[in-house]
């Protein structure tokens, strides 16, 4: 079969890549001894970028260099393992909903959850795992419920379009997930157990060893829940109290990491992430019952070689993903199996020309394979290649920095447009920074858009558009009280928006819509370090108008209307207090009303949620024990994020993390 042939081709490529990699590695190894370390330089650059976090990099670490060096002019929001650790039983979708300014469209706990960055759609978020894009080849989205928060060490959100840096899909924003080595950490182990309401049980076991030049780590986890929470069924007369049915899920996964500094300034990293997920798909309140299930399985492998030589650092990366999605609905005798494979090879290099200029060049190739019984010829594949170049200027006093990036992606059917980004940051006063960015972004049609039968449309153009943003960041330190204010205004106009709509007896995607998202974002953070701890208060408010500028001809009257499931108002308040071993966190989020029809004639009301998290760390010579308790939705608020899909009321999680100390 054709598919087998493709598989063979793919393995041949994989094998070829390994050979090339080994050859390169040996060749480089022989001259590696002559190289300078160069880590200090990198560190300072990374600190400049992640100035509001403790994101320090290891000695040889250029994997996030694009994010570090070339995000000039962008709004970036970072969070690290400490924040993740506090809510480690959550999916990335739940975590982002709690702590980030991103609107998460959740179909319920454990169910599909997608993101909307800056008023854009679910497939307008690029997600990268250590540099490898994770969006589905089939539908262009990533299900955030399949992304366990505790599998990553750090994450960064970049708001706004940025096609030049991240390629297809980085239209509304980018989520960057990072795993990092801990050299010189010796033997470490970690056992975590979390029990929660509605049959939630999360367990994770990890072990690692870190010497000066080697770090190896293994982590396994399982997360499951019955999700049989009770709710008031507003779809029935007298809103009876009912129990959620057919909503259980189970996820199991493994993450293996291996990092070797095989020369003073060269590192090899190999990461493997495998996961299987089973879930029941609950009925909406307007359906009566469901027996549908969905199984997702994937394996992701990433081999990365990074290094430095004088003013040049480089990264060569080869990533392979295989994914399987099996949807079953016995009520209609449906079994739909989708399989996809992605193989991505990329190379990039940074050259610090002098004290002012940093230049980057990169090349990427992707081979995508997708199969589904509904695809034309059952199996389809694509090659995509892109070229990337960036240049950054930074003046001596770091008062002014400016960068320009440009990417050209070559794809089958229709090439992506040339996408440039121009970003500037200027610090006129010591406490004030002004940022501005002009950027173009795009999204290529997905395999479903192109090949699904019936309907697949190979004449689709990529979606594309321009975005602009300006912002200020002010910072003041008053008697140890650090106050930071960020204000941003943005505009993002996307044309050729792909929509599926009914045609001649079946639905078919077309480039029909134009959407203009624009808004204001405000964040104010107060932080004070106390003798035995600290407190931190972070307030956010986002105002996002995302309107249909051009609609399908039969619905011209929708022009000017707000996109569905896109709130105009979102806000949050996060308060953290730390005193010795005790940590208290209060999270409050507000999501405003969303429309559920393009005519803006029906809406879901907005809702305010509050969570309370606490942890206490017991330290002993032999063991460290972290006790955690969390209350979610304290006010027991009844709400829906997606219409007719109820969300749980007040619920609890209790966790314990045990870390034996082997390095006495």
């Amino acid at each position, binding site marked *: 079969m054709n598919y087998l042939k493709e598989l063979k081709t793919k393995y041949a490529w994989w094998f070829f890549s390994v050979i090339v990699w080994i050859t390169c590695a040996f060749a480089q190894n022989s001259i590696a001894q002559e190289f300078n370390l160069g880590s200090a330089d990198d560190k300072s650059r990374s600190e400049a970028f992640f100035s509001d976090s403790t994101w320090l990099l290891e000695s040889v670490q250029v994997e996030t260099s694009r994010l570090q060096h070339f995000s000039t002019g962008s709004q970036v929001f970072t969070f690290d393992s400490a924040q993740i650790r506090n809510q480690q039983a959550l999916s990335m979708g739940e975590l982002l909903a709690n702590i980030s300014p991103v609107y998460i469209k959740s179909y319920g706990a454990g169910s599909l959850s997608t993101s909307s960055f800056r008023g854009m759609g679910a497939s307008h978020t690029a997600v990268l795992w250590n540099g490898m894009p994770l969006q589905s080849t089939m539908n262009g989205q990533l299900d955030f419920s399949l992304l366990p928060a505790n599998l990553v060490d750090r994450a960064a959100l970049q708001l706004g379009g940025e096609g030049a840096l991240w390629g297809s899909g980085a239209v509304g924003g980018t989520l960057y997930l990072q795993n990092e080595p801990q050299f010189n950490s010796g033997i470490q182990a970690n056992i975590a157990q979390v029990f929660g309401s509605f049959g939630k049980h999360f367990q994770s076991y990890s072990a690692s060893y870190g010497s000066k030049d080697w770090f190896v780590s293994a982590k396994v986890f399982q997360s499951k829940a019955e999700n049989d929470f009770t709710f008031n069924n507003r779809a029935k007369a007298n809103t009876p109290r009912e129990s959620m049915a057919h909503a259980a899920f189970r996820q199991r996964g493994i993450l293996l990491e291996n990092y070797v500094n095989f020369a003073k300034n060269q590192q090899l990293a190999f990461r493997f992430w495998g996961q299987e997920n089973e879930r029941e798909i609950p009925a*909406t309140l*307007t*359906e009566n019952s469901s027996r549908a299930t969905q199984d997702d399985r994937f394996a992701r492998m990433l081999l990365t070689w990074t290094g430095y030589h004088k003013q040049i650092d480089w990264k060569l990366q080869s990533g392979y993903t295989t994914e399987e999605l099996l949807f079953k609905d016995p009520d209609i005798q449906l079994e739909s199996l989708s399989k996809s494979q992605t193989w991505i090879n990329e190379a990039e290099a940074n050259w610090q020309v002098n004290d002012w200029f940093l230049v980057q060049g990169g090349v990427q190739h992707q081979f995508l394979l997708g199969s589904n019984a509904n695809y034309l010829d059952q199996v389809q594949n694509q090659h995509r290649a892109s070229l990337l170049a960036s240049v950054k200027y930074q003046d001596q006093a770091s008062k002014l920095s400016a960068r320009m990036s440009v990417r050209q992606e070559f794809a089958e059917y229709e090439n992506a447009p040339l996408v440039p980004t121009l970003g500037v940051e200027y610090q006129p006063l010591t406490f004030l920074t002004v940022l501005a960015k002009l950027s173009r972004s795009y999204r290529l049609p997905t395999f479903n858009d192109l090949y699904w039968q019936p309907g697949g449309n190979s004449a689709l153009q990529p979606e594309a558009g321009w975005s602009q943003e300006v912002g200020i960041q002010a910072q003041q330190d008053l008697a140890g009280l650090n106050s930071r204010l960020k204000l941003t205004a943005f505009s993002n106009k996307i044309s050729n928006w792909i929509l599926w709509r009914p045609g001649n007896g079946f639905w078919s995607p077309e480039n029909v819509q134009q959407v203009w998202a624009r808004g204001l974002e405000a964040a104010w953070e107060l932080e004070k370090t106390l003798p035995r701890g600290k407190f931190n208060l972070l307030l956010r408010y986002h105002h996002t108008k995302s309107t249909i500028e051009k609609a399908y001809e039969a619905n011209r009257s929708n022009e000017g209307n707000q996109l569905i499931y896109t709130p105009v108002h979102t806000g949050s308040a996060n308060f953290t207090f730390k005193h010795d071993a005790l940590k208290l966190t209060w999270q409050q989020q507000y999501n405003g009303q969303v429309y*559920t029809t393009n005519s803006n004639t029906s809406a879901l009301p907005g809702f305010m949620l509050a969570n309370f998290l606490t942890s206490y760390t017991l330290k002993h010579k032999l063991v460290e024990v972290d006790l955690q308790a969390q209350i979610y939705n304290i006010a027991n608020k009844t709400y829906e994020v997606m219409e*007719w899909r109820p969300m749980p009321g007040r619920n609890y999680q209790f966790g314990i993390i045990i870390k034996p100390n082997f390095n006495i």
Partner: protein
Amino acid sequence: MKLLKILSYFFFIGFLFACDGDDPEVEPTAPNEPNAAQYENGFLIANEGPFQNGTGTVSFFDYSTNTVSNNVFQIVNNRPLGNILQSVAVHNREIFMVVNNANKVEVADAETFESIATIENLALPRHFFGVDEDKAYVSLWSDGTEGKLAVIDLNTYTVSSEITTALGPGKMMLHSNGELYVPCSGGFSSDDKVSIINTATDALIEDVLVGSSPVGVVEDKNQKIWVLCAGKFLPDFSGLEESGSLYKLDPTNNVIEFIFDFDDFQSRPSNLVIDSDGEHIFYTLAGSIYKMSVDATDLPSSALFSASLYGLGFDPESGYLIGSDAGDFVSNGKIMRYNPENGEKIDEFTVGVIPNGGFHFKENNN
């Protein structure tokens, strides 16, 4: 006017007849015209509602005011109808709303629209047909491996038995000879039969083989049966393997009298309706609406008018064609009224999301 009279028996729209439960020909129980319930003095529009997370809604066109009121069921009963409203019917002064994806039929009073009952455990129901005072049929796509009619006991609003049909049974039509014709389009797959049911015994009489994917059946002034078949897609959906066709059957022995072949391998015809005199049929094809005399020997060569309609109906009360436009399928749609003589648009009204062809008219012409 025999057709009209016969039809009125089964849709209880204001004619006075006696009923005996067994013989559908002579069992009217409908109230007097002056006593027609409030929601019988107009026609009902089924709005499927947004897919996946939505609820269907019912709109009502009021003859006395020429206005449309939307979302009637939810406003009266303070709860949604359910996911994908496929069709609406009125029978025994009760409104039956067939909610496909919720596997139920909601029953409401035709005077007040207040909920009376919910008929549950119906596997993907499509259309409702009231046989007599005590019995009704609901066509079910079931799990796709067989088609069924659920026999409903209207005293208890429960399923009393089932009749197996060909795959994907659709909108049922009772012929003046007392036999029920069920076009079976295949549902999730394909089929090419019209199942004929004896409504007295609930037995399948026979499956008549017609063209691929029969989507509608009507009876003309000569009691002939017309079946519109949509045709069959090529495996890759790039076009049609079998074009659409129109079958004319003689009901006395259910033999095919004539086959009109559309000979179009790109577009599928849909939405078969007939005027109240049984003289002209109407259907949609590739963005146009066609009108054809039941005495014609050829398909019409030109369209009556152009419009991209999701559903089509003929309103016997006003004599207008009613078209529904679902637009982008995520916004409120609209219905338009057209003059069936020249295709001129009379007026249009905003309704709910995805109005389809599952109308109920005061004097239903099937």
